[in-house]
């Protein structure tokens, strides 16, 4: 009898592990992501075939337009012009935002002076300032970069500030007990401890930067991606328009994923694979 139960238990374990294996295939993030993209493409295709609107192309014609625009060089050329203010603006907003946020988190006068400004900026419909930016800085690269910065900066500053303010106090005491200097405290304790929330702010800020640059190109000066969207729409080339929009969304997503990768790699290695 004892042997019987033993066998039963072994069989139970085996079947359990088999179903666990099948389950694990679905738990694989790559499989799930591909599945979700596939479902999305299928839904898009069906919606385009119905069609929900004459201005709504199918997924396949959008992809075809994407390949065509890549081949004729119009999409790459648009990206060359769009990426300059975008990258410049995002990099500046990142460094300035993390710097200002850290300062405000550590230094009371900075907090009183600057944080209200950024709270107002975050609450305000900042896109409405973009014509104002054009008025002051014209229609060049400066205006577009500034549009990226005004959209990206507040959320980066506020997240960094909150993260720095809520740093784990017992780690600071530990650093002090081992005679850490103020600088060591900031760079070895405060910033690594705050990095998950800072990076959450950076992801939001980068996404806002994409909004900023496209808005600037739609509102200020018809160049780059914004121009391509406007141009395709004016020719009723809806597949081309959607291909451009979809490519911006894809690029933005890839950037955010890359940011997450940097965070885990460089700042929080303990979260790798966990």
């Amino acid at each position: 009898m004892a042997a019987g139960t033993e066998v039963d238990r072994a069989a139970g374990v085996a079947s359990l592990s088999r179903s666990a294996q099948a389950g694990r295939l679905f738990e694989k993030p790559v499989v799930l992501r591909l599945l979700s993209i596939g479902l999305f493409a299928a839904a898009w295709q069906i919606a385009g075939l119905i069609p929900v609107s004459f201005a709504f192309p199918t997924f396949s014609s959008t992809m075809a337009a994407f390949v065509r625009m890549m081949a004729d060089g119009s999409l790459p050329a648009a990206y060359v012009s769009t990426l300059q203010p975008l990258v410049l603006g995002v990099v500046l907003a990142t460094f300035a935002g993390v710097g200002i946020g850290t300062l405000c988190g550590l230094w009371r006068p900075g907090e009183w002076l600057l944080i209200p400004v950024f709270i107002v900026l975050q609450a305000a419909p900042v896109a409405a300032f973009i014509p104002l930016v054009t008025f002051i800085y014209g229609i060049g690269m400066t205006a577009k970069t500034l549009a990226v910065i005004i959209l990206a900066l507040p959320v980066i500053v506020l997240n960094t500030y909150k993260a720095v303010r809520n740093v784990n106090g017992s780690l600071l005491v530990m650093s002090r007990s081992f005679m850490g200097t103020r600088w060591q405290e900031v760079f070895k304790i405060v910033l690594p401890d705050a990095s998950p929330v800072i990076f959450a702010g950076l992801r939001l800020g980068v996404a806002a930067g994409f909004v900023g640059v496209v808005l600037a190109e739609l509102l200020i000066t018809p160049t780059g991606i914004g121009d391509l969207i406007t141009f395709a729409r004016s020719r009723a080339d809806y597949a081309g328009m959607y291909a451009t929009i979809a490519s911006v969304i894809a690029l933005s997503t890839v950037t955010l994923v890359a940011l997450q990768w940097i965070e885990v790699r460089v700042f929080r290695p303990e979260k790798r694979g966990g």
Partner: protein
Amino acid sequence: MRAAVVRNEAVMNEPAADAIVEVRGISKTYGGVEALRDVDLDFPRGKLTSLLGPSGCGKTTLLKIIAGLIDADRGTVAVNGKKVSAPGPERAFVFQDFALLPWATVLRNVAFGLELRGTAKEEREAIARRYVADVGLAGFEDKYPHELSGGMRQRVGLARALCVDADVLLLDEPFSAVDEQNRRKFQEDLIRLRTNQNKTFIFVTHSIEEAVYISDRIVLLSPRPGRVSRIIEPDIDRSGDPDRIHRDKHYLDTVEEIWQGLKQYVE
């Protein structure tokens, strides 16, 4: 059977032969609550002294004042004859909540005190490896704190404090966040570790059994305001089997005696 050496108030303040830490007239008030009043204490070199008392008796406050992490309202603390008011290299702290860097490996956490002092990476990691092995964590060097149990995390905290080669180790209820089984194992290991390390330990605890089990000297503090009420030197032979101590008649008598003395403060 030897009797515990119990000192009363009258003889308490006589200076110890070789005191490494001297506390004189320390008082501290927190927002109207008097945490410590006029505490005079000597901590003999090379001994493990426990600060024992019910919650609210100011034992952790006293430890943090000795560490230089809290400023006293009045009084002085001298270490090796020199007055101190801030953390120094001759003292190292072990925290109740471990205070480990979650993003750093065991090895980097253990070496962190040396990292802050600017010791070169190779050198500090070599030292840290030795102490990781000493506290029984060999093989866990590259793990992160969240992968360890509470007991193992506190071993990291202890190794970090040992690593900076301080004369005095200050331990703030180091086992209170560790489960019972791990705590007993850790206490045994601490007794063993003490024989290899020529260090002075100042140990805060609220557990009478723990204090009697590991201490050379127990300072009983009374609450509100925190004052030294008694000093007890349990005369327990800790060589040989550590399990034997728990059955030692003398150990049990001392625990009972302290409990009778503390009972009045427990509401």
